[in-house]
């Protein structure tokens, strides 16, 4: 013991690890970020936004290169000309795709005018499979608050868990800690959807639980939010049934394919004004 106490760096390291683990435990729930976190996160946000945009551009460029293998058989001059044209077309395609995504987001907002929407961009994601969280470039300054739902043109993306002045962190729908009350669109049965931890799968998966025993569920059925609980507005698309489980020993009723492509989330919308919606209902 005396030898341990004499080794000052070791004592400091053990104490620091202990303190950090206590802090981690204390900050495990949803919360408002501290001033230090908010200030530090805000300070590095421009760099992250730039790096995020640059990465997307690099990935897009690499994908474009793989898409132009036919040009290899043409002569050098023609190759240059073709690649220049393709570059222009790809740029136009990217703009068109972005325009389409934004248009779809606009359509979504027009369908529910009683809610207010703040558009944000994903600027970072957690590493590994254990926690599926991501960071948005909008925070308290834009009216974002804890627990606000996040959607994109395809459906429900997740919810805000912690908010800083200029950025916020969110947990995605496929995170294993998430559970959302849902309705089967065709039969109006209600159940609960949870995120899953399924590494090595090309497609993300959700699990549907707690449906009534006599529920008539078919592959392809659309699953939407039920609105129960007051966090998520009613009717947001979650996904569709991929596989129905009839096993009585399992509490799981079905496996769902999420509507959102969680591997390629770029722009999202944070939904505010849920109180107004409750007033309308």
């Amino acid at each position, binding site marked *: 013991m005396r030898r341990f106490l004499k080794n000052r*760096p*070791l004592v400091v*390291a053990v104490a*620091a*690890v202990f*303190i*950090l*683990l*206590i*802090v*981690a*435990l204390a*900050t*495990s729930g949803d919360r408002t970020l501290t001033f230090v*976190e908010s200030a*530090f*996160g805000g300070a*590095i946000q421009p760099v*992250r936004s730039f*790096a*995020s945009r640059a*990465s*997307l551009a690099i*990935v897009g460029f690499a994908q474009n290169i793989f898409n132009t293998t036919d040009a290899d058989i043409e002569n050098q001059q023609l190759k240059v000309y073709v690649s220049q044209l393709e570059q222009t077309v790809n740029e136009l395609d990217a703009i068109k795709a972005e325009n389409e995504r934004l248009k779809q987001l606009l359509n979504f907002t027009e369908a529910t005018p009683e809610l207010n929407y703040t558009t944000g961009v994903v*600027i*970072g*994601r*957690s*590493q*590994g*499979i*254990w*926690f599926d*969280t*991501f*960071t948005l470039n909008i925070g308290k300054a834009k009216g974002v608050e804890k627990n606000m739902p996040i959607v994109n043109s395809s459906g429900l993306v997740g919810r805000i*868990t912690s908010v800083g002045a200029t950025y916020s*962190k969110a*947990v995605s729908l496929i995170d*294993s*800690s998430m559970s959302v009350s849902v309705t089967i669109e065709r039969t109006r049965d209600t159940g609960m959807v949870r995120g*899953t*931890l*399924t*590494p*090595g*799968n*090309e497609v993300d998966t959700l699990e549907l639980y707690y449906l009534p025993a006599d529920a008539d569920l078919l592959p392809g059925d659309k699953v939407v939010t039920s609105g129960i609980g007051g966090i998520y507005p009613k009717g947001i698309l979650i996904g569709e049934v991929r596989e129905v489980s009839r096993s009585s020993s399992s509490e799981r009723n079905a496996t769902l394919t999420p509507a959102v492509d969680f591997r390629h989330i770029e722009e999202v919308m944070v939904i505010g004004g849920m109180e107004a919606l409750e007033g309308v209902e």
Partner: protein
Amino acid sequence: MNRVALLGVTMFICFYMDSIFFPLVNFYDICPDMMLAASICIAILSGSVSGARFGVIGGLVMDIAVGRFLGLNGAMYMSVGYLAGFFYKKYYADNIIFPAVASSAACFLKDNFLAAISALTGTKFVYTSVLLTYIVPCALITGAAAFLMYVILKPLFTSIVNKSQQERVTN
């Protein structure tokens, strides 16, 4: 380039790779933990205190920017950095296999620790499946990343150390 600048640039690159690049570009979710590999390489090159300091700062940056819990990555990377520092000057410095093996082992332990936390918080998963399809491949790729990182960092660290020794002699 001085030592602080080198550590800063290394940390920024690892942060960028871990939080922006690899979430976009990965193979079935398998990607290396660059910050962990860097903490180990730095600890092996310059001792426990440097490794732990790099680990805790890098981990906290990750926690603040993209982490779920504030301090979890800080604690893990600091422990790893501190422990890897025990091998500082205790083996042949040109052995580039050693940092790779240490990083693989650390990544394996880290993912098992996170698996335990996930299981304790109610996440259901099949451990053997996660072990074979995620934990082991991630450990191997982190080892490979550490191998490359060590090859790059070692000459830079050596030149900085030599330069500072020369300055001391001149003064």
